[in-house]
């Protein structure tokens, strides 16, 4: 096996493991925001390592895989951000109630006071 093949297999193993951990995190974490942490950071790095691993084993595909990587880096945080915002402005009984402090909620409450 060539050096590139070994690097590719190591990257594939690491990426697969991180993707597995992200799945576990989404299942195990206690509330919506924490699930988002696992579902954003871990899947992003996991898929990047995975694509790079495939790219090492099949160098001809590298440009297209890099396109997928750039797409994932750009879109994944935006999706998480949109979901987090939707949760925060959503109905009260669907929000996690274990937040120790919530500056955004205070800010919104102040804004409503000013409107009246």
């Amino acid at each position, binding site marked *: 096996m060539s050096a590139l093949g070994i690097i590719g*297999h190591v990257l*594939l*193993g690491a*990426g*697969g*493991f991180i*993707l*597995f951990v*992200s*799945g*576990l995190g*989404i*299942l195990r974490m206690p509330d*919506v925001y924490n*699930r*988002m942490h*696992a*579902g954003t950071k871990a*899947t*992003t790095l*996991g*898929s990047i390592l*995975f*694509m790079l691993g*495939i790219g090492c*084993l*099949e160098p*001809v*595909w590298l440009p*297209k*895989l890099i*396109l*997928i990587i750039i*797409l*994932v880096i750009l*879109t*994944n945080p*935006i*999706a*998480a951000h*949109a*979901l987090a*915002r*939707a*949760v925060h*402005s*959503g109905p009260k009984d*669907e929000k996690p109630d274990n937040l120790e402090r919530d500056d955004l909620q205070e800010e919104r409450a102040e804004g409503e006071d000013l409107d009246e």
Partner: protein
Amino acid sequence: MISYFDWILFGLLGMGTFMTFVRLLKGRTPADRAVALDGMTLITTCLIVLIAFFEGRSMLLDVALVYAVLSFLGVLALARFLDGGLR
């Protein structure tokens, strides 16, 4: 030829997809399901790339690319919907 290592890879990704799917079914809130769907589509994208590698078909890479774009748009539409309807 599929080696042990490749079986392990398929197993890891399959377990990841399965666990996010359990979260998708259990949910509790719609946002939980949306997060699970987001994670599941990314893991499945990697699975498609892996299958493309084993089959040796570069066409499946295009499938993975389009799948990633569409999943992003889907999650964004879901978030807009949860944020107070599609205005």
